[in-house]
């Protein structure tokens, strides 16, 4: 942000904690359900599993308003450009969860049109295997991701404008 260069270090540390707390409790996912795992993702947002407890119920259709990309389902080569474009449209800070075996590694589909894992296209923070994984697994992944988000420091995400 730039402010961290001007503050004394002990304040920066506390600021990082506050920002991390705010970010981890308001991760807004982008709707990116591709295949069967999308159903489990939808179910996680409903009352039985309730992702709203973690602050993540606002599934934004537009990637520009979201900070979490849950890739749920098989990624095909025809779709890979779209994923890349959506990832690039998301503003920093952004995280990605590969939900389901197909997103982690191609799953049972080792065929001519399937990308063997979404990590060939974008950097993944949490992998959730399963076919499909239970909605509780998605919640566990979000909790794991929340730990990662809370521990981030400002130096992890350098300001690109300040660099050049």
């Amino acid at each position, binding site marked *: 942000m730039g402010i961290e260069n001007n503050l004394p270090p002990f304040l920066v540390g506390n600021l990082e904690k506050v920002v991390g707390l705010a970010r981890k409790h308001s991760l807004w996912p*982008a*709707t*990116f*359900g*591709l*295949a*069967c795992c*999308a*159903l*489990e993702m*939808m*179910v996680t947002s*409903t*009352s*039985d599993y309730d992702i709203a407890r973690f602050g993540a119920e606002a*599934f934004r*259709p537009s*990637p520009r308003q979201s900070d979490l990309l849950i890739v749920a*389902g*098989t990624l*095909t080569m*025809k*779709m890979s450009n*779209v994923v890349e474009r*959506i990832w690039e449209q998301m503003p920093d800070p952004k995280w990605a969860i590969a939900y389901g075996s197909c997103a982690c590694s191609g799953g*049972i*589909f080792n*065929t*001519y*049109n*399937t990308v063997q894992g979404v990590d060939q296209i974008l950097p993944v923070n949490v992998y959730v295997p399963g*076919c*499909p994984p*239970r909605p509780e697994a998605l919640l566990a992944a979000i909790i794991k991701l929340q730990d990662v988000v809370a521990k981030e420091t400002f130096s992890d995400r350098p300001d690109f404008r300040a660099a050049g």
Partner: protein
Amino acid sequence: MSETKNMIVNMGPQHPATHGVLRLVLELDGETVVDVTPHLGHLHRGLEKLAEHKTYHQALTLTDRMDYTGALLNNLGYCLAVEKLLDVEDQIPDRATVARVCLCELQRIAGHLLWLATHALDLGAMTMLFYCFRERETVHDILEEVTGARITPSFIRVGGLADDITDKFIEKARAFIKEFPGRIDEYEGLLTNNRIWRKRTEGLGIISKEQCIQYSITGPVLRAAGVDWDLRRDQPYCGYETYDFEIPIGTTGDVFDRYTVRLIEMRQSIRLVEQALDRLPDGPVMMDDFRYAPPPKDAVYEKIESLISHFKLMSTGYKAPKGDVYMSVEATKGELGYYLVSDGSEKPYRFRVRPPCFINLQAIKDMTVGHMLADVVAVIGSLDIVLGEIDR
């Protein structure tokens, strides 16, 4: 000099209302749709080619992943096709046949609930999402009781079922049957006489009977257009001719009629589940043919011959006789057909799925041209498409 050009809008593969990765390129004259070009294939995983490299038993797991909203119906279609090919149709035990009907009708209810939830969500009625998913979770619990999985069970196997139906399942299913008609009344109370719902769905996406038949449209869309045809009654399988249920027929073929037809179908499915549970006989759930059916699990753990037989069937698989069959079932979306060609080996030579959503989607141009952009969303919702089946 000003000139007006039509606007080309991309309703991209990543869209909350396209029910998956469907890309529509719309040409708009203001707000009115002039042309629609669907671009498919964003979920084309090569299932048909992959099945040619798997044995008949292994290819069953691929069928779940096509129409993932109603997976047990896909399994049923595939198993019926393979059983016809192997010529073991009369060996399927009665308990398995009745249980198949019960499971498939429960799955049909779950599929229609998902349709209603997403269709209503697209049109703005977000409450329906939560209500329908509450019921869908109950159905998933019931199915998980016997199958062990929620969305991709692979429970209906060639020759019967994978495992027996438990008493707990029957108990839960009966409790569900008691409370579900009241829930459908809730949904109808929210939507059927709702002025906004009717204005957004009536008179939209109309397709005539003759056009439906020309486009090979099947399922609730065909019945809403007024054609009295249901595979369960006209080309029955699994003993459906002995059950007592009605087929709802629509009048105008618009989006509202399709909604009404599917709601009535849910009520009829409850009747079918009740009848199936009432007549569930005792007995085995897997046929006794040692050439194709695996031996019971307790024998596998105790006798060496059963273990060897099980191993051989699961690893190499069984050889199917040479020939080709086409078998179709009435899935939630329409006529789901399997065309299997066998060359005498353990793997299907050609595994063709007749996808109802793919064929129904072809008529989208006729249904949306002349309507407005927001109506495209309503029409897509009423067609009840699942991209896993369209693209395979």
